[in-house]
């Protein structure tokens, strides 16, 4: 059934209300396949989505502290750019970002 809904909305899936994500916080989204996705909300109410795995040792980024447009991984404090998924220098690595948008107060994730 899910697959039908997704195609109907051209690949955008309604996840939750923006208010359901705490400011400077995140929520975990269980994806059908490919592992968890972390969605973040920063102080400017921007919403981002990343694969919930740090490129370093696969720490769950959703559990990190959000600041500016970055999140700090809870395991070994790598900083990851929320928009690109790139690790902040001097660390090197990348986490897969997902397209996400806010419409009418709802968070839509491209799946």
């Amino acid at each position, binding site marked *: 059934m899910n697959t039908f809904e997704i195609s109907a909305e051209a690949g955008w899936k309604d996840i*939750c209300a923006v208010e*359901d994500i705490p400011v400077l916080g995140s929520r*975990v*989204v*269980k994806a059908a396949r490919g592992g968890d996705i972390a969605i973040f909300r920063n102080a400017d109410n921007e919403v981002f989505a990343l694969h919930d795995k740090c490129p370093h040792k696969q720490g769950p980024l959703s559990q990190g502290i959000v*600041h500016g447009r970055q999140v700090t991984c809870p395991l070994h404090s790598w*900083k990851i750019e929320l928009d690109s998924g790139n690790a902040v220098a*001097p660390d090197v690595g990348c986490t897969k970002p997902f397209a996400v948008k806010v419409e009418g107060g709802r968070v839509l994730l491209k799946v």
Partner: protein
Amino acid sequence: MKKMKLVMIGNGMAGCRTLEELLKLAPDLYDITVFGAEPHGNYNRILLSPVLAGEMTLPEIMLNDLDWYRDNAITLHAGKMVTKIDRIKRRVIAADGTEAEYDRLLIATGSTPFIPPIPGADLPGVLAYRDIGDTEAMIEASTKYKHAVVIGAGLLGLEAANGLMLRGMSVTVVHLADWIMERQLDKPAADMLQASLEAKGMNFLLSKQTEGLVRGESGRVGAVRFKDGMEIPADLVVVAAGIRPNFALAESAGIYCGTGRARGIAVSDTLQTVTDPRVYAVGECVAHRGIAYGLVAPLFEQGKVCANHLANFGIGRYEGSVTSTKLKVTGIDVFSAGDFSGGPDTEDIVLHDKQGGVYKRIVIRNNRIVGSVLYGDTADGSWYFQLMKDGQDIHEIRDHLMFGQNHLGDAGHKGENKAAAMADTAEVCGCNGVCKGTIVKAIKEKGLFTLDEVKKHTKAASSCGSCTGLVEQILASTVGGAYQAVSAHDKPVCGCTELSHGDVRKAIRDHKLLNIPDAMETLSWKTPNGCSTCRPALNYYLISTWPHEAKDDPQSRFINERAHANIQKDGTYSVVPQMLGGVTTPAELKRIAEVAEKYKVPTVKVTGGQRIDLLGIRKEDLPHVWKDLGMPSGHAYGKSIRTVKTCVGAEHCRFGTQRSMAMGIDLEKMLFGMWSPHKVKLAVSGCPRNCAEAGIKDVGVIGVDSGWELYVAGNGGIKTEVAQFLCKVQTREEVMEYSGAFLQLYREEGFYLERTVHYVERVGLEHVKKHVLENAESRKALFERLLYALQDAKDPWAERYAADAVPAVRREFEILEA
């Protein structure tokens, strides 16, 4: 908005450091133009000696190459010497006619070598030792000529002599004074240094006054003649008789440059020239409070303050520096700092092992270190230097002082005095597997100067931090005099602010700041919402300073404190229920067993704190696990009270003198819900056999027949620290009051992530005794403040599984579907 124009004259280390600091603070405030007389970018002048000695190459010592100027949109006029400053029209003019206008001018013209007025000083083959040009000329001369004479046996002279010697020349060092480096060393150390340089093949002529330099047949210098008639051959003469601030340009522009011995561009504590507030000056050209500094560390401090004012932040004052010296001659370790001239009111502690090549002298006045000279074993130099700068009373550690910080049992591996001798393959950071060679390489290749930079680039010392001291030593021995250890309590909290932990604490108290956004705004935070380093610290300072008033921000807490469980490497969590004093019941054990089976908990473990740990629980299961357990949180995850470990005590033990289990339970109940700068562990033993290991706890209580002994600031962690005896008390109530007062003092004064052992080391046990022992009023007030802060502490687990839990709290554990 139109940008202001900033012009910098001089393209050296002090000036460029100032620009770097400025760009960090206010990247878009200025259009920046730089004039440099040398045709290069900015290089590390300190490392010219290793270049001369053939240990490094020029590209290796570049700090800011031309790309750096381009990337930061800085106009660089390299090779153009500014000849005029027009302060009326606010512009500078270079020798080739290039002009630049300024709104702010930064003069960083450095210093010029002092050439004594001796006949023949202008002959070909006579050089100063100051820049890349001089270094290249010396290297070239060493390939063609045999005899080199260095005039001046100061730091620079000896480094030049060493380099020339390594390049195959026969070198004689001539010196006016009776011993070498007389400004940095006393005679015994200088004699030892001279002997070891002589053993390497260097020649010395001391107490010699040069009369003139004699022209050789080729027209080049050929010999040096002394007042006593002696003459020695010389194809190359390097004059290293000191440096003088280069202020001619500034003075010609009417800027006051001091008189007499205090010559140099006169600046205020904000690094503005006293003559013209639009004009700033930093570096060796400056005389601040009459002192011109010739070492890099003070110049960097000046740069930092200057940048802050240029960026319109207006905080920070430069109030002068205490300097230390390190000689960069491979294989020879010399360190000196402060005033070691001695005198009737000073006393010396001296260790002198001529055969072993070790000399250490510490000069003390009024129980404070005022100077030190070290030869052969300099590992503790930075420690003595820090004690000296802090003006710390050393009478308590006096008998250990000479044996170094290691001997003191300082926390961490700080005093493992072996950085220089370590092999490159030796592991320094055991957490991240970083070896010495990796650190040295990063320091050299990336031009790192600070501990923070090394941490970022190599990850060394970035986890548990126990190797911090060792990394600092490697940094010090790699960059030499350029490195100055910043004591942790002066360091800014993080890159988001210039303020130290102490400053932040004080401001939160003084301005009654109650939430993080207000604190960041009042304290001019540089980032919009801080980072993972400063936010948890701020949050702790707020709630500990203003309990029941400040707003606790879960998003500014590390995940463990937000989820009230301990995150594991695979992203699952561990659950440790409270077990007061390590005492449990069959009913509790049954419930734990049932929960472990129901949730298929993969590992059940007894912890070191006498509790039971359920490991491998999924986050979404946490509230259910807690509810099924029906036990309160053990706070095994927080910077908070952890546990009170107890022995069996007089309740059962045939040796027990006091009821330790009951005391432990009472203490743990009292401290329930206590957040602290770092984790806090207690133990109570019922007799001096001390089976609860109270000697390595933040607060250790040991029952004796006549009462209780209290110990504080022990640590069983990274480096074992034995707790220090605080006092002996009679009653249960006194145990609660004294240990509570100590913990409250730590809660109010400790810096975030500072264990009690480090806190007490910083403030001194005397300070603790003053507040907790000697002044009953202060003790009672502390104790009351602790009880007030802990009043109505709620079990965080129950708050989260309760049927009426706030949705926002509940959401933390709920997963969304895609």
